[in-house]
C-alpha cells in the first residue's frame, strides 16, 4: 500500500501507459508521434521503478529513475535533431515515405 492505494493500481496504470506507447509506435506513421510514444513507454517503466522503490523503502530505484531521465533527455535532444535534419532534407517525417536509405 502506498498512500492508501494498492500497488496493483500503479502496475495497472504503468501497463496501460506502456501498451498505449507500444501500440502508438506500431500504428502511427508520424515520426514525432512515434518518438513521443517511445518516451511514454520509457516513463511507464520509470513509474514502475518509482512505485516499487517506495513500496520497499529503497531509494536506489528512484536514483535509477533520475539517471534514466537524464539519459532520456539527452536522447530526446539527439532524436529531435535527427528528425529536424530529416525534415530539412526530405520535407517530410512520414515513416512510410522514409523507406530507403538513399535520398
Amino acid at each position, binding site marked *: 500500500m502506498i498512500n492508501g492505494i494498492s500497488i496493483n493500481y500503479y502496475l495497472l496504470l504503468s501497463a496501460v501507459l506502456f501498451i498505449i506507447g*507500444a501500440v502508438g*509506435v*506500431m*500504428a502511427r*506513421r508520424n515520426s514525432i508521434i*512515434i518518438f513521443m510514444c517511445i518516451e511514454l513507454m520509457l516513463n511507464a517503466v520509470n513509474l514502475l521503478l518509482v512505485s516499487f522503490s517506495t513500496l520497499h523503502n529503497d531509494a536506489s530505484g528512484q536514483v535509477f529513475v533520475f539517471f534514466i531521465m537524464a539519459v532520456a533527455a539527452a536522447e530526446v535532444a539527439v532524436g529531435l535533431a535527427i528528425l529536424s535534419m530529416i525534415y530539412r532534407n526530405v520535407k517530410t517525417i512520414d*515513416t*512510410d515515405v*522514409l*523507406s*530507403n*536509405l538513399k535520398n
Partner: protein
Amino acid sequence: MIKLIGLVPLFPLIGFLINGFFGKKIGKSVSGIIASVSILASFILSVLIFVELNGSEEKSHIVNLFSWINSGALQIPFEFLVDPLSSLFLLIITGIGFLIHIYSIGYMSHDEGFARFFTYLNLFVFFMLLLVLGNNYLIMFVGWEGVGLCSYLLIGFWFKNNAYNDAARKAFVMNRIGDLGFLLGIILVFITFGSISYNEVFLKAGTASTGVITTIALLLFVGAMGKSAQIPLYTWLPDAMAGPTPVSALIHAATMVTAGIYMIVRSNVFYSISEVASETVAIVGVVTALFAATIGLFQNDIKKILAYSTVSQLGLMFLALGVGAYSSAVFHVTTHAFFKALLFLGAGSVIHAMGGEQDIRKMGGLSGKIKITFMTMLMGTIAISGLPPFSGFFSKDEILAHTYEHSPLLWMFGSIASMLTAFYMFRLLFLTFFGKFRGTHEQEHHLHESPSSMTFPLIVLAILSVVGGLLGLPEFWHMPNWMSNNLESVIVRKNPSTLNHETEWMLMGIAVLAAAVTIYVAYIIYRQKKTIPLKEGDKMPGLQTVIYNKYYVDEFYDAVIRKPLDVLSVAFHKFFDIQIIDGLVNGVGSTVKTVGSGIRLLQQGNIGFYIISMVIGIVFIILLTFLI
C-alpha cells in the same frame, strides 16, 4: 671469471644485432671489424675461463642465468654448464670462428651482401655457443635449431642462384628429419627422468630400464645423423658447398657438423649403458666413413672432395664414439677442426686465385704462383692423411687403436677409409698444385696470392694442424695424454687401452705404412703418369661411373621418397583439397548466399513493420523464458 660465462655468447649476439640493423649504414670495414672483434672478445674470455677451469679443483660449474620455463612439473632454468668438454668446444668455436671471420673480410670484400654475411656468421657463433654451453637438452636444442637456421641462410647466401636455394632447402629438410628424432629423444628423457638438466638426468640414468635408455640413445643418434651428416642423412653436406667457402670451413667442417659428436659425448652415460646403441653408432660411423671416402675418390670439384672427406672423417669420429673412445673422438674433432678449416680456407684461396673456378681439372701448377696457400694446404693434407708427426696422425691412430681393441673387423674398415682419405687428398693436391696449368689464359693471367687477411688465418691454422697432436700424445709412449686426462670428469665409462705396446706399435706402423703407400700410388698416378680425370661426358668404366655419380643415392632418394610423396600429394590435392575442402568452403558460401537472398526481401524499409517484428520477437522471448 666463470661467473661471466654469460658474456661469451652475448658478444656475438651484440655483433649480430649491430650488423643486422646497421650493417649497410656503417660500411664494410666497420661491419667486418665489429663482427671479428665480438668473436675475439668471446675468444679471450673463453681462454680465461679455460685457464681458470684448468687451475681449479672443481671441474663442473653450473651458472644459473635466469629461470626460463616454469610450468607445473616442467621446470627449466636457463643454465650454462662450464666443464672441460664445453670449455674445449668454446675454444674451438671462438678461436677458429675468429680466424674465419678475419679470412672472410678478405674473401667477401667484393660481395654486396658483406654485412649480411657477417650478420649470419655472428648469429651462427651465438647459437653454436648456446648449443655447447647449455646445461640441459632444451638449450642445446635451441642452439641446435639456431645453427641449422644459420646453415640454411648461409648455404643459400647467394640466393639469386636457384640451385643454391635448392641446396639450402635440402640441408634444412634433411636436418629437420634428424631434429625430429632429437626432439623425441628429449621428450622421452623428460618423461623418463622428469627433468632434462644434464646433472639430474645422468645421476638417474641407472634407474631406468636398458630398453628405455637404448631408445633414448638411438633417438638422440638420429638427431646426430642429421646434423653430423651420417648415412642415411648425409646427402645435404656435399650440396651445402653452395655457400661461401668460409662458411663451408666454419659451419660445414669445423663446428656445426661436430655438434652431433658433442651431443653424444655429452650423453655418453646413455651410450655406455646401452650396448645396442653404441654398436649402431659404430657401424653407421664406419660405413659412412668408407662410403663417403670412396665417393671422394672421383670427385672433381675441389670443395666437393673436401665435403666428402668431412663426411668420412665424421664417420670416423662416430666410430670412435661407438667403440667407447669418447675422448679420442673429441681429440679428432679438435684436430679435424684445425686441418679441415685450413683445407677449406686454402681451397677458398685457390678459388679466389682462379677467379671462382672450382674444378680441379682446370687447375694445375699453382704451387709456384700461390706459395703460401700451397705450403699451408700441404700441411693440411699431410695432417689429414695421418702422417707423423702431424696432428691427424695422433687422433686417427688413437681412434683406430681403440677400434682394434673393440673389433678388428671395424678396425680394418676404418683403416681402409683413412687410406682412401690419404689417396684423394693427395690426388687433390697433385692435380691442383703440380703439373701444367690447364685453365684459360685469362685465369692464368689473373692468378695471384690472396691478401694477408686471408693468408694469416691459413698460417695460424697450418701451425695448429702441425702441432695439434701434442694435445693427445699416445699413452704407451709414456707421455701425458692431455685430452683424455682433461675429459676424465665428463666421461663415465673409462677405457684405458688394454693393448700391449707391441700391438700398439704394430697398429701405428700399419697405419703409417698404409698412408705412405697410398700417397705413393697417388703420386705415380697423378704425377708420373700425369693422369687427369676424364672430362664431363667421356666414357668411364662401370664402377667409376657409379661412384662418380655418388652411388646414385640422390636419385634413389628421389625415386623412393620424393616421387611417391609427389604422387600422393597430387592425389590428395585432387580428392581432399578440391572435392572435400573446397566443396565444404564453397558450400558454406553458397548456402549463406541463397538464404540471404531470400531473407533480404523482408527488409523493405517500412519502419512500422520493423517495430512490429521487434515486438513479436520480444514477446516470443518473454514467453520462452516463462516456458523454460
